[in-house]
């Protein structure tokens, strides 16, 4: 139980931090101002990178988060099904088979 719980917290924390970084990369340009001198596909690199990272990279990153968080939800369901009293186990198993997340 403890391992699943800690994983849930860490996944949420890391996902939150990653989303924050991807959509707020502006301070990076203060650390590496040389980025602002390049161009990519005709755009200043920092302008295009900000939009690409904050949007197009965000989508697969969030998709990956969905997969991982789903897996954790299923692990919680399985844990609950394994530890519940016998009378309720059938219901829990049916729930787990039908849709683990709600």
């Amino acid at each position: 139980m403890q391992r699943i719980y800690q994983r849930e917290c860490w996944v949420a924390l890391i996902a939150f931090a990653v989303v924050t970084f991807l959509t707020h990369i502006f301070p990076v340009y203060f650390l590496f101002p040389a980025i602002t001198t390049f161009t990519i596909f005709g755009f200043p690199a920092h302008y295009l990178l900000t939009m690409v990272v904050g949007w197009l990279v965000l989508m697969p990153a969030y998709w990956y988060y969905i997969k991982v968080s789903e897996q954790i939800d299923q692990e919680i369901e399985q844990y609950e099904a394994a530890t519940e009293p016998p009378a309720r186990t059938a219901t829990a198993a049916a729930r787990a088979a039908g849709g683990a997340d709600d």
Partner: protein
Amino acid sequence: MTRSLLPALLALLVVPVTALAQEAAGAPEITGTYRFEPTSALSTLGIVYTVAMVVLFLYIGWLSKNRVATSEDYYAAGRNVGGLSNGLAMTSNYMSLATFLGFTALLWSIQYFLVAIVLSFLGGFVMISIAIAPSLRRWGKFTSMQFIGDRFGHTAKIIAVLCMILLAQLYLIGQMKGVGNVFQVMFHWDYTTGLIVGGLVVTTYVTIGGMYGLSYNQTAQAIIMGIALFIPAVIILWKLGAGWPSIFPPFGYGNLVPQMMEALPSYFDPFTTKDGTLPLTPKFYTAIMLSIAFGTIGLPHIAMRYFTAPTVRAAKISTLWGILFIGLVFFTTFAIGFAAKLYTVNELNANGLAIEPSEADLLVVVMSQAFTPAWIAALPVAGALAAGMSTIGGLLMVIGTGIGNDIYSTVVPNAADRSRVKAGYIFTAFGGLVTIILALNPPDFLLTSVIWAFVVASSTFTPVLILGIWWKGANKMGAIAGMVVGGFLSIVLWWTKGSLLGVPLVQLGPLGFLVTAIFSASAAWFTTVVVSLLTGGEKDERILREVDRIHGWRDYHPDRYNGKAFPFACAAIALALMIWSAMPDPAFEAASAAKAPTATEVASTTGD
């Protein structure tokens, strides 16, 4: 009365257009102002599109009425809205009139800085689905205020509802006024007539259709908004010489960048804004994140969409669709804004004409009329109205639910389900009518509203929601103290432009009061944690069990979500941010001393 759709924000940020002309090398002297006048074909087709759209919205609302049998149907669309549809509805719910027309105007005024603001919006939208939405969805109620009530008690719920009404009105008045303005400018209607017609339409379809009607209408509105932006953007970029990349406007104007660099070198500068006249610093970007992204997490009308999903997984899939569509709309407005800025500098300024700030709100339509045939140029008119109505609808629904369900169920705890549905009808309609009346002659402070609403949300709802979900120790006293302190500071620091009793707490220069959440939200986080710890944390086992349940656990374990590291880290970071906020920033001090006008001074130039 001006025709500004985002008067407050523009008032704070707008740059005298003559400065643009001076920056454009060799630009001739400005001798006049450009006044937008829609052609008769544009007005006629705009009316046709608008009437067709309004009929569609009312029809959808009427059809949806038949699906409303229970309070769950009325307030949460039976928790039956699928992933794609909900993603589209989230998009139009989040994309307001300010986004559709105002972003182009803001890009014209503040350039790269808008990218920072916009991506913070998108970040906040995703953070909701990570930090609070899954748990709120498992909680199984209709609003985040209701969660606050169940988790922290009735007093906290009433404070939350009051905060919701304040920020909903901050949002709504500007939107209603914008809808009235679109009718006024495009169709030469009297402002009051346009406001009443537009306001009544949206109030009617939301009231009769409830969340079902709102959801399906918002889905349709997202599609209308997308078409209304995308097609004109392709044509405008193509005609400006962007070439084949213009078929995908969000990234379709790379070929035009050299022209912009020549006309306005500061356009892409991430270290300054307002045509290179104001510095941007890492602290300012941090403050943006706390105001915009964390504000989005707390916006109740955004969170409400997650309650309509059938499962937690479906809610997350909706978010994924939402990221796609929101990004498309955001970055297409950037493309049009870029084109508008280039057109302003190279064509209008070159011919001695300047654009008045109030006209900048109409740049999407100005550009469409200049570059596309009337039947396409009229699309953004419909798109703008759809954008305004979708957001108004979402906010009216949250008002209706907040009063009709959350407050009503507190006052009448044993009310029958049918009574709650009736209360929803009454208070949704009531909210709409009150907003129309307020928008007839809106108080000035409500016009400086959209970003302020984010600051209020960030300083009241967000800390309480996140701590309430992820830390069992958060208790009633902490939540109440946090919301009161955050709400108070978010109002006071806005009025005083960052000072409390003469002590400057937000040292962010002339634009600082846009982002006062760096102090007010941090104070709310700090207060919630410290007061909760000082008052012994949450003791009620029923509530502690519920915290486990909303994370998916059916058993109870007292140690889960009850560590000390998370609240201590939150309090420490919040304290550090408050101190950092109050520390003088030399870059802004220099800029402020040099030239920065006050918000009031600039606002007075717009006539609002």
